[in-house]
């Protein structure tokens, strides 16, 4: 098996749930980032607390890495099962580190061209401070194999174990060194082809040149964007894979002045957020499909009463409880049409960690500008896979805050007179019309508290003042006023057409949405014969990539133009029914030549896409 991008190296750490696979893997990734590498990770774990095989992949290189991949250069095994499960994925010339006490068939490894590196892992761990430190030993060994300095790993170990006290830190540092030295003693790294030499220009803080790039996943990026964008209220009920967003904001609530509420259920979470949004806060809820299902009624409420609200939905394997810790893109059409009746909503589907950050603040601008619920669709892979991003991606200066037609106190004073001039009966001659009919559908919005801006809202159909009304003409106009906001959003250019990656012209266009972007991008690079694009992207090539990030209101014009330029289109998505393909047919009459769909909960790798294209006879290969 060929790795997707030659210059990136892939390390997989495998073991049982409860062995610290995820935390060690993430620690290793962080050390690599600190060393100045570009990193992408993938965690594969089960919906249980202990037991069962888990693994963690770290891919690192000098060029940006956009996805995990199939091939493994170095396998770190904490259990014999890890060797059995993953040995076939190791590339020729790759290596596997395992405990010398295990029964591992060397001939099998030899036939695969894999170098066996058996070390006294558990014994070294025991000596360093306890069996549980085997994961640290193996990280030290990995560093030695890959010719990595130990400094970054040591700094990560120091930090990660700090709250467990000095002895634990020291034990783990000893474990690190023990693994490192064991490999060196054995000379096991000699001529190992997949070393990670320090990049020439880039270098981490250990090297004192410039800060290492931030390493984070989509949930944390979204949270940062939301905080920078003024989000100060979050209500949620824990649900994988959205929990880390909620927990992150909660952990930083005091420091940032954010109010966080662990609600009694998802219905309470979203209705609390609606209350907060009504009162004038930028309010967020975070959930996954099952929780979103419970929020559907209140989503429609927000649409009807025109209260801004952001709903972050991280998709996981469905239907129902499904595969709670795995990735899928199964909720596109559901979130688009959720709730009875028709009302404006915005749906964004960030494809990368960078876009997740942007969605963090942009979603609130759109929610307040169009006074409606905004759904941000993520998925388990985007929500929990760490990736290094350029410094610029989290630059706060790029964050814009736009509250649209939210009326300030001064606006209200200007329109209705200053409050101290308001005497009993404290009512303006022409009372404030919360739902005033306007050309663009947007009614200037006062938040409750100003003496002249007293109003009530109702989920029943209502008139301009908010009073319940069944009047036929008012109904028609109010429906049109609300829906007009979507046209305004399109007319303002607030919704972006699909993003093109790769050459402007190509024989083959992959069409994606959400986190599938990463694998598709790497697939496109492989098809075009370069591991990562140089500054001068050629005008034409074998393949390119069209990614839809702004789903609703659907930017018909740019989308149709982009689709019209597609020669052979292949929609790549992680679901069974081909939801994006259906959606594009519905909205743009577009039908692709082929579809690649995966629905086993495991994210697509670049190689999966190439293989599927090959199977469909869509690659012109020798």
């Amino acid at each position: 098996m060929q790795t997707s991008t030659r210059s990136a190296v892939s390390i997989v750490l495998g073991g049982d749930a409860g062995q610290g696979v995820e935390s060690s893997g993430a620690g290793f990734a962080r050390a690599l980032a600190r060393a100045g590498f570009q990193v992408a990770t993938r965690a594969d774990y089960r919906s249980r607390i202990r037991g069962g095989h888990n693994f963690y992949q770290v891919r690192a290189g000098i060029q940006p890495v956009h996805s995990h991949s199939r091939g493994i250069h170095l396998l770190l095994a904490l259990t014999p099962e890890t060797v059995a499960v993953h040995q076939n994925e190791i590339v020729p010339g790759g290596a596997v580190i395992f405990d010398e006490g295990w029964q591992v068939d060397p001939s099998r490894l030899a036939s695969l061209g894999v170098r066996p590196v058996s070390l006294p892992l558990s014994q070294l761990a025991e000596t360093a401070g306890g069996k549980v430190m085997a994961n640290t030993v193996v990280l030290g060994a990995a560093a030695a194999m890959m010719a990595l300095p130990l400094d970054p790993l040591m700094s990560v170990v120091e930090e990660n174990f700090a709250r467990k006290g000095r002895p634990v830190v020291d034990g783990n540092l000893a474990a690190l060194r023990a693994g490192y030295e064991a490999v060196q003693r054995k000379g096991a790294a000699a001529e190992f082809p997949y070393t990670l030499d320090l990049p020439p220009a880039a270098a981490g803080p250990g090297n004192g040149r410039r800060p290492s790039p931030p390493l984070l996943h989509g949930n944390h990026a979204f949270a940062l964007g939301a905080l920078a964008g003024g989000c100060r209220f979050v209500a949620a009920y824990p649900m994988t894979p959205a929990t880390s967003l909620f927990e992150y904001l909660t952990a930083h609530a005091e420091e940032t002045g954010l109010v966080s509420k662990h609600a009694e259920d998802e219905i309470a979470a979203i209705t609390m957020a609606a209350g907060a949004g009504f009162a004038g806060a930028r309010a967020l809820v975070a959930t996954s499909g099952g929780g979103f299902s419970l929020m559907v009624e209140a989503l429609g409420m927000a649409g009807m009463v025109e209260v801004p609200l952001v709903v972050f939905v991280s998709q996981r394997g469905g239907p129902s409880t499904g595969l709670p810790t795995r990735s899928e893109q199964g909720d596109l059409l559901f979130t688009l049409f959720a709730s009875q009746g028709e009302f404006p909503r915005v749906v964004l589907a960030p494809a990368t960690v960078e876009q997740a950050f942007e969605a963090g603040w942009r979603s609130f601008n759109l929610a307040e500008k169009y006074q409606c619920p905004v759904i941000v669709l993520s998925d388990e892979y985007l929500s929990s896979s760490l990736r290094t991003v350029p410094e610029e991606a989290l630059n706060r200066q790029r964050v814009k805050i736009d509250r649209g037609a939210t009326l300030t106190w001064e606006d209200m004073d200007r329109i209705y007179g200053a409050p101290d001039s308001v005497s009993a009966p404290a009512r303006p001659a022409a009372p404030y019309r919360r739902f005033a009919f306007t050309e663009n559908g947007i009614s200037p919005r006062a938040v409750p508290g100003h003496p002249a801006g007293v109003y009530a809202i109702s989920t029943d159909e209502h008139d301009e003042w908010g009073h319940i009304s069944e009047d036929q003409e008012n109904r028609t106009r109010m429906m049109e006023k609300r829906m007009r906001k979507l046209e305004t959003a399109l007319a303002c250019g607030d919704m972006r057409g699909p993003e093109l990656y790769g050459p402007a012209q190509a024989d083959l266009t992959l069409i994606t949405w959400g986190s599938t972007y990463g694998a598709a991008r790497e697939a496109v690079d492989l098809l075009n014969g370069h591991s990562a694009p140089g500054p001068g992207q050629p005008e034409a090539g074998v393949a390119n990539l069209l990614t839809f990030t702004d789903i609703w209101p659907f930017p018909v014009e740019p989308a149709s133009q982009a689709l019209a330029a597609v020669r052979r289109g292949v929609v790549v998505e992680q679901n069974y029914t081909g939801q994006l393909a259906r959606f594009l047919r519905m909205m743009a009459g577009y039908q692709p030549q082929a579809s690649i769909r995966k629905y086993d909960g495991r994210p697509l790798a670049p190689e999966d896409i190439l293989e599927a294209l090959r199977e469909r006879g869509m690659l012109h290969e020798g």
Partner: protein
Amino acid sequence: MRDDARGRGSGGGNPAVQAQLPGGARPAAAGPVVTLQMFTSEQKPTWCPGCGDFAILNAIRQALVELQIAPHQVVLVSGIGCGSKLPDYLHANGFMSLHGRPLPVATGIRLVNPSLRVLVVDGDGDAYGIGGNHFLHVQRRNLDITHIVENNQIYALTKGQYSPTSEAGFRTSTSPQGALEQPVLPTRLAFTAGATFIARGFAGDPKHLASIIAAGIRHPGYALIDVLQPCVTFNKVNTYDWYRERVYKVEETGHDPQDRQAAARLVEEWGPRIPIGVLYEDHSQPTYESQVPGLARGPVVGRRLDDLPDETYARLVDQFR
């Protein structure tokens, strides 16, 4: 903060918007004297003549005037039902939300702007039926919300099905042989679940009701006011007369609402005699709002959206390196 949350009767304000003002805090208006007339709405109630909801509407207005809370300083949050239309018939801020969901909506409002007084006004179906889970959990929180339940022991707006407070054996279209469930006794349930103020009012005695509502608003924390509200159209059993024969005022018996033992007995009483008035009051509990870390620097909506210091932001980013 705890005091902030209690800033009632003050000029109120629109802190959400101050967020957009460079000048920061704005002086409270020297408010006019709050009168009944200030609450008058152009909307005419659509309730049946004789409906108990009229008295509740009036009692709320009375209480607000008594406490000098102006229309812009209060938000009435309701659900869906006959009684939940009340905010439409009153000139004040309001949010007529979803069936069963006014409590979490009110929670959200309080959590970002504790300078607004928040009243929840809903039906027995809202509060004890579909909204039961919120009812349960709100009791544990002691948010400063005044919860007025228009308890007519029936689903009225949907034309007469039995409700969680309907007596066992009560015949309706969905209980043709009589309700098979034991009724919810709201006062007892709230007591058990942790409420710090529990009262019962009767729509047939609007003055008494107004005084109870005022006491509930005054109470620093969650206050349940279950109101016996005759539905003259669909509930032919629990009529004005039925209630009148049974109710008695606890204050006339010398009841001290702060006597937990005595209250424990009163919240259980439902039968030939039904106590009305303030049954229970516990001043010792802090409000939920006063303990929320994110509110330490004042109401969320009173702050600028870009108030996160650059240093804080940089520190947050650095944690990902």
